[in-house]
């Protein structure tokens, strides 16, 4: 077949080219088919996922956190509800339009910014404003049709009823920071979650959190809701029952706040169980306010370090209260005669150096008991020298100094007990006898936390039986299901002879009856304790008082420190008295008579 009126070769030339064109078209269609196969079969699953993601939104409804109770079932931390504005991205809009922002600004009368801050994103959702009043909420709901992608959501907010007094027990919550997002995501948090900071909020965060809920809705390209699929109601977190005695805590906080410097720490432990009755670090912070950036900044710049939990994180030199350890070691190892006296001239000489007693005139003739009661330095220098550094170190560790107590609060510190090896390593110097002498009265590189001191005192009161301190008794779900219950642990035991314990009790009782702790003497109840005035290189002496009561059948033990408070007997002891008065319900007027 050829073209009419054309020569044959012209048609054959045409057929050649026709073939080329046909092959060319086949190639083009093959390309299209390969691409189609690639998109739909090979990448199909991932594209299906994307298409599902962009049509499905879930409205994040944050779960209220569990309630924190005190020992007498008073509420320490609860939730109240506020309204927040959220923006759901749709179509090509990842941030709300300027028009909508202006509209919101007009209604709220404040500056709303569409932030791209990671902290303010809940997945793809952006938080525009929080703490709305109900009127503002209604106004926005009225104009909802013109405000594309914007919705108002109810959100729980944490409220603390004794914000300052219990600040270090409860801690506080806020949204996660940009720099910690990755770490927290690994721990199973989601972006936008509130995270507990410090105190019970942090250590029991997993229980308190609850489960997020919300609507699963289908939206179209304009961000309008097409249909809702299902609603998952948020689950409130489990309630936490702490061991704190709120009245005692409040009294203690007020007493510390009104003390000489207003800075200090108190730990009150239940001797029978190890439960924390009160745990005060002063100054505290207002847990209701720290959520806002401004107040947070103010608190973190404060020179008095309100965020610092002094009871578990702060190191202090123990000073004379360490004499309890020296005392125990001396009775155990030196077979000392308690009646034997030495003469205190107010100064102790070792080689060419003088170590003075706090009482410059000297106590005169003192024996073991009266030296403790009067806190005589010279007597204990003598004992320390006879014991040697090895024994002091051994006994300090026996009383669990330099170790964590294991309390269920975050970031507890260990403290420190020095040793000749440590000094060699760190200071490149050998251990001198002078170091031993000052170690015997709790100075030198010996560092303890107030909690450790209270723990030591409860062990002394219990004749060696140690109960691990704890602050949360139980965690109970809303439906009554108990998730956690504290078990009494008394596997730690300080093994000393009965003679040592009775002598120590006698000495501590004498301290309060006639010695340096007499300002805490109570009518009807016998208190045993020891004062301390710890010299510290940074400034004025710290005032210490550790004690337990009633002496014959101990119930509570406590450690009090007032930072730079001066003499322990003068400044720390009266606070101890106030705490005992509150605990034992003693009318202070009657006591004075």
């Amino acid at each position, binding site marked *: *077949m050829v*073209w*009419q*009126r*054309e020569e044959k070769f*012209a*048609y054959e*030339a*045409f*057929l050649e*080219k*026709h073939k080329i*064109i*046909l092959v060319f*078209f*086949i190639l*083009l*269609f093959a*390309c*299209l*088919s390969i*691409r*189609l*196969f690639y*998109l*739909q*079969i090979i*990448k*199909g*699953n*991932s*594209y*299906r996922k*994307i*298409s*599902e993601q*962009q*049509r499905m939104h879930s409205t994040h409804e944050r779960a209220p956190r569990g309630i924190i109770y005190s020992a007498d079932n008073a509420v320490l931390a609860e939730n109240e509800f506020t309204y927040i504005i959220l923006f759901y991205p749709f*179509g*090509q809009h*990842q941030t709300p339009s300027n028009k909508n922002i202006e509209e919101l600004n007009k209604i709220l009368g404040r500056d709303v910014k569409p932030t791209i801050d990671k902290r303010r994103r809940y997945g793809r959702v952006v938080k525009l404003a929080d703490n709305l009043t109900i009127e503002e909420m209604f106004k926005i709901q009225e104009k909802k049709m013109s405000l594309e992608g914007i919705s108002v959501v109810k959100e729980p907010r944490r409220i603390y009823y004794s914000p300052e007094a219990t600040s270090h027990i409860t801690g506080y919550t806020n949204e996660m920071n940009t720099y910690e997002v990755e770490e927290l995501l690994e721990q199973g948090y989601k972006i936008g979650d509130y995270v507990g900071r410090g105190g019970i909020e942090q250590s029991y965060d997993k229980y308190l959190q609850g489960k997020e809920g919300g609507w699963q809705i*289908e*939206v*179209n*390209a*304009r961000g309008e809701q*097409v249909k809702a699929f299902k609603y998952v109601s948020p689950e409130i977190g489990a309630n936490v029952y702490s061991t704190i005695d709120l009245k005692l805590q409040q009294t203690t906080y007020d007493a510390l706040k009104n003390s000489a410097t207003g800075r200090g720490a108190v730990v009150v432990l239940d001797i029978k169980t190890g439960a924390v009755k009160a745990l005060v670090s002063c100054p505290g912070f207002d847990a209701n306010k720290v959520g806002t950036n401004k107040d947070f900044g103010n608190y973190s710049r404060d020179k008095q370090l309100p965020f610092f939990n002094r009871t578990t994180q702060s190191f202090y030199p123990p000073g004379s209260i360490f004499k309890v350890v020296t005392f125990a070691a001396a009775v155990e190892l030196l077979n000392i005669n308690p009646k034997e006296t030495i003469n205190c001239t107010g100064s102790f000489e070792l080689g060419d150096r003088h170590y003075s007693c706090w009482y410059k005139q000297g106590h005169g003739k003192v024996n073991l008991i009266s030296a403790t009661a009067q806190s005589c330095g010279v007597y204990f220098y003598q004992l320390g020298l006879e014991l040697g550094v090895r024994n002091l170190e051994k006994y300090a560790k026996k009383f669990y100094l330099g170790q964590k107590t294991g309390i269920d609060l975050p970031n507890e510190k260990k403290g420190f007990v020095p040793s000749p090896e440590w000094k060699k390593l760190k200071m490149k110097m050998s251990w001198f006898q002078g170091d031993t002498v000052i170690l015997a009265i709790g100075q030198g590189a010996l560092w303890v936390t107030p909690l450790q001191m209270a723990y030591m005192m409860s062990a002394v009161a219990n004749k060696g039986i140690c109960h691990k301190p704890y602050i949360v008794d139980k965690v109970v779900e809303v439906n009554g299901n108990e998730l956690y219950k504290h078990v009494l642990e008394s596997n730690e035991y300080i093994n000393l002879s009965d003679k040592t314990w009775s002598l120590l009790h006698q000495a501590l009782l004498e301290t309060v009856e006639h010695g340096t702790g007499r300002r805490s003497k109570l009518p009807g109840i016998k208190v045993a304790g020891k004062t301390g005035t710890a010299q510290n290189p940074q400034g004025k002496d710290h005032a210490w008082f550790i004690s337990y009561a009633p002496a014959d059948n101990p119930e509570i033990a406590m450690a009090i420190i007032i930072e730079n408070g001066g003499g322990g007997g003068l400044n720390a002891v009266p606070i101890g008295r106030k705490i005992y008065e509150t605990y034992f319900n003693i009318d202070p007027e009657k006591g004075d008579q």
Partner: protein
Amino acid sequence: MIQEKNFFQRLTSNIDWWLVFAFAVLMLISFITIYSACFNYGTPLKYLSVQFLAFGLGVVGLLFLTSLNYQYFKQLDKVVYVLSLVLLVSVLIFGSVKRGTRGWFDFGYISLQPVEIAKIMFILVLASFLDRKAKEAKRVSFLISVFAILISHLFLIMMQPDFSSTLSYFPVTLVLLFMIGVQPFYLLCIMVLGSLAICIPLLETFLNMQLQLLQKEIFLTNFAIALKSSWFGVYIALTVLFLIIGSWWFLWKLRVKISIVYPVVLCVSILLGCVASIPVEKSLKDYQRKRLVVFLNPKVDPRGSGYNIIQSKIAIGSGKFTGKGFKKGTQTQLGFLPEQHTDFIFSVIGEEGGWIIAQLTLFFYFLFIWRALTIAKEARDRYGSLVAVGLATMFAFYVVINIGMVMGMMPVTGIPLLLLSYGGSSMLSSLCAIGILCSISLRRYTYY
């Protein structure tokens, strides 16, 4: 002229049934998809009724053109040419403006886009011209007259301005010139000319957008500033010309004898390309330029112009093997897909019908084009062959560009998918084209 059988007997016995079958299947897919795609607009029946009306008119045109001997077009080629020019000029005068383009005759209920008809007329005219002057195919004057015909159409369409409608002219012209026996070298020159004319304005846009985004690339930035601010571009063009002439001279000295015509033609086409870029730059709208640039580098503008491509790819990909089902495509029904009843209709097929239906659609398109090429092979004269090849090329070009676009292989140019997309004018012109194809096919055994 022998008239043994009547028209209907010839129709049933000689018509290319495969072509009709492919066409019918594609029409069926089209109606179903348009119904689904317009469902979320609320009035799918309105769109469908317009489409049916156009289809009815088109079928009348198809039958008329089938019964008409296509050789009349060859005899009346001057009339057809003048008529096409009249159409294009009158739309510039009487036409109404839609989306910034003066390209529609508005008849109230429906509106007609004369460019769609003019395209078919151009193929008829060009084929006729090539057929008459086939023996002069090696001459430059021949090429120049072809380009005179081409430019007259392009100029009028650019006046509207409608960039995307001009695109199909280039492959049709090139393929027909190739078929008639023009040397591939000249076609290469033409392609250089055309691509220069389009790429220079694009380069400018691209550099503009890059300037805002990539301040880091010091070399690129300096290059762009130099290009924009001085005669730097002219220097580059002159250097290229000098290099071409120089290398030709060098080869001549090496006694590799190449006619002086080749370098001169290449140089001239480069110069012409540069000059032609000026009117192209003026007619290209800003968004069109951006679209083309975004295709070259989608990361330039992921939220704006890149959005359409991304959503289309998501729609097609999420269809997977069997699709999400009729009216169940989330991308389509929730409005994520742009222009879903016109340019992006293939994405709807891909999403709701899945790979099976999409691949089947591609297959039927190929069947259709293959049959059109077969008609070209079997036509009884050169004119018929050229017209059939021209029409086949037009269909193939539309399919490849449009489906390539929705799958992210081609720039977003606003070209509809012939036969499938919603649109009366393109439906009408497609059916007319099929009518002409049928006419050629029907008369393949008719000798005179």
